[in-house]
């Protein structure tokens, strides 16, 4: 057990920091977070990803043979911690680098790896995830988007939803049903979809804060060639598990700050940090944040040692969601009635409380963290099974062919 950097890690951190200082400018911690419209944000992401790739900092945990740095999860976290201090944008590559890449490395053919991994690393291709459907949320495996055989490939029809940044994506990973006559998990195939294909309509969904981060995606007779099937036909669920596990171990692999410094700064600026009741809230936020640190370190230790993390992965996600909800709650109590004022969209020209609209905005979107990547309830059920060894709840649909379920 060793909690600080080892000498090797300290050297890596110094190298990363030196490179970052040479290629990016520091974020001004006193200034409010730089908000921008999504298109601008995505543009910045592309540019920065290209810079990372050019200098060998893209895909830190990817094996070198696929263009990555061949580093450990801990190195990746160290780079992330250092990078967080700089004024650079990375979010648009979270799905590609964090989820699609590991999936293709595990399940793709050499040709697929060759075609997709390079452009992803270099920032040329932004990827989106086409998994959820209006009728298939927590019960993702009940999805109904159909892919039917045609000459040299598949014709896809259906509707997807909650597609992050779909309106800016070049490629998508798509789950579609290729065999409705078998039980729900067995008839799904995993595809890579060129978003430029004809028959795709993308409609942004406006959220409470006025942002349209998510999209609905309508697929009408969309053709996907055979070479874009990942894994075997009908084996999409097991390929998707790699993607989803990458997502879950990714959620909460944050920077170690977890908003706590900002919260304390808000309390100080509003002269509330000496209030004993407020202080309880600040200290509780510190407790939660430090816990996220160690939970994260434990996860990264497992990954760096080449182990697949166990149910502790799900703790991270739940603790993360709870932390943000409680932190936003504490901040709202500090802001008082001012929190009810202001325009919470990131492109708003005026902010009522300079730099502090992020808290109401966080409060209003906290529940999204509890839903994305699996609801709190689903995660707890998994913990019950995997960590506590509790038998599964009886499932009403086990073994039933999907097409019979669809008729219910």
């Amino acid at each position: 057990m060793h909690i600080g950097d080892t000498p090797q890690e300290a050297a890596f951190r110094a190298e990363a920091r030196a490179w970052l200082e040479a290629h990016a400018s520091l974020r001004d911690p006193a200034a409010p977070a730089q908000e921008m419209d999504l298109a601008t944000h995505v543009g910045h992401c592309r540019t920065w990803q290209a810079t990372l790739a050019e200098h060998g900092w893209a895909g830190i945990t990817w094996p070198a043979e696929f263009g990555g740095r061949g580093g450990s999860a801990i190195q990746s976290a160290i780079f992330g911690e250092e990078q967080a201090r700089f004024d650079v944008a990375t979010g648009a590559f979270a799905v590609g680098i964090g989820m699609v890449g590991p999936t293709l490395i595990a399940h793709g053919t050499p040709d697929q790896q060759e075609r997709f991994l390079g452009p992803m690393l270099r920032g040329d291709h932004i990827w989106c995830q086409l998994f959820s459907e209006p009728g298939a949320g927590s019960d993702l495996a009940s999805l109904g988007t159909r892919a039917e055989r045609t000459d040299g490939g598949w014709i896809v029809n259906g509707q997807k939803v909650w597609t992050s940044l779909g309106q800016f994506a070049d490629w998508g990973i798509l789950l579609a049903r290729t065999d409705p006559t078998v039980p729900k998990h067995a008839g799904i195939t995993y595809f890579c979809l060129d978003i430029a294909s004809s028959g795709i309509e993308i409609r942004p969904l406006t959220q409470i804060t006025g942002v349209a981060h998510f999209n609905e995606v309508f697929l009408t007779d969309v053709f996907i060639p055979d070479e874009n099937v990942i894994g075997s036909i009908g084996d999409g669920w097991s390929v998707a598990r790699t993607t989803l596990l990458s997502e879950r171990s990714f959620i909460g692999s944050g920077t170690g700050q977890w908003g706590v410094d900002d919260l304390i700064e808000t309390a100080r600026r509003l002269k509330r940090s000496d209030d004993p009741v407020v202080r309880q809230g600040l200290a509780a936020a510190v407790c939660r944040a430090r816990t996220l640190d160690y939970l994260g370190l434990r996860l990264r230790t497992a990954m760096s040692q080449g182990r697949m993390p166990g149910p502790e992965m799900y703790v991270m996600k739940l603790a993360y969601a709870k932390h943000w909800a409680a932190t936003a709650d504490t901040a709202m109590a500090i802001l008082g009635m001012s929190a009810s004022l202001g325009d919470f969209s990131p492109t708003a020209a005026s902010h009522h409380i300079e730099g502090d609209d992020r808290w109401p905005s966080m409060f209003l979107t906290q529940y999204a963290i509890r839903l994305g990547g699996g609801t709190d309830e689903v995660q707890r059920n998994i913990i019950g099974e995997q960590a506590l060894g509790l038998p599964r709840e009886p499932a009403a649909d086990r073994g039933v062919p999907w097409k019979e379920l669809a008729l219910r």
Partner: protein
Amino acid sequence: MNFDLTEDQQVIADLAQQILAGSMDVDRLKAAERGSGWDPEVWSALAEANLVSLCLPETVGGSGMGAIELALVAEALGRNLAPVPLVPTVVTAMAVAEFAESGTHDELLAGVADGSVVLTSALASAGANDPLLPGVRATPTANGWRLEGSKPAVPYAAEAAAIAVPAQLPNGSSLVALVRTGTDGVGLAPEKTTNHQPAAGLTLDTEVSTADVLGTAGDEAAEVTRWLYEHTVAAMCSIQVGVAEGALAMTSSHVTDRQQFGRPLSAFQAVTQRAADAWITTEAMRVTSRNAAWRLGAGLDARRDVAVAAWWATDGGQKVVTACQHLHGGIGADIDYPVHRYFLWGVQNGTVLGAASAHLARLGGLLARS
């Protein structure tokens, strides 16, 4: 002792629900959000049904009812998310009727009663300050008082004909003045609010006549401020009860209809138990807000009762709407689906009422003094 509504009260509650449920729909709400933030037609419908004049004296066309009847209309308002200035208008008008010199404001109150006049009060203060502490200064002039200062987030200020404003005198005591909008030195800067209803920051450098002072300038005026504050808070707690109830009704339908894993969501205990907790909280909000309103209506000391109701409305109300939002899953994030409005209203009301910890601190102060 009897916690049941009287027959008259039940008639009022049913009428309010009937009118608001009949008037409001998602298209009207969207139109209001895109436009001015409120719905003058629904306001007219309420006025025509004598629900705006309900708590005004019969001499100005009202029905002489009180805080508990207002609470029932407010519950219906929250349940149907009606964007109308019921609470600021009626509470301010009731204060004018109660504290202004008799007969001096009959025209204004008659306008309120027929729905043509909106009124409001400037009670909020930024940060965690004491809501009873005025942020405006008053100095005597030949015919009245000069008011200087500012107040944030006055609901429906731009729509109102007059605003009740507590102000502090040079000797530390206070007054409550009825400031006419549209007169010189009364500045309004629109503010965006979480639930899209109109509000404005108010800046004052103006004069009011002695006739427009509610009650008497001096220490008694603190009682007028407290009266405005307690009646406003109690009525907002009632709106929050309706919001929680409406959110929960929509959620019950959703979890019954939506199937996952081959059964409705409501067949999963994780869902049922959370919905049941939200219902329990809603009932706690209902009994405490009705108690606070009843005590105000009966003219009894309601300081503790208002704080108890406000704690539930803030802490409990936000928990209920957050649970409802969560139980809707992804669909709740799409503003084309209506449940998010309950969330926005619940957060807005919870925030404007003040942090839950502030209500507990106030109540703790009252306990210490007892």
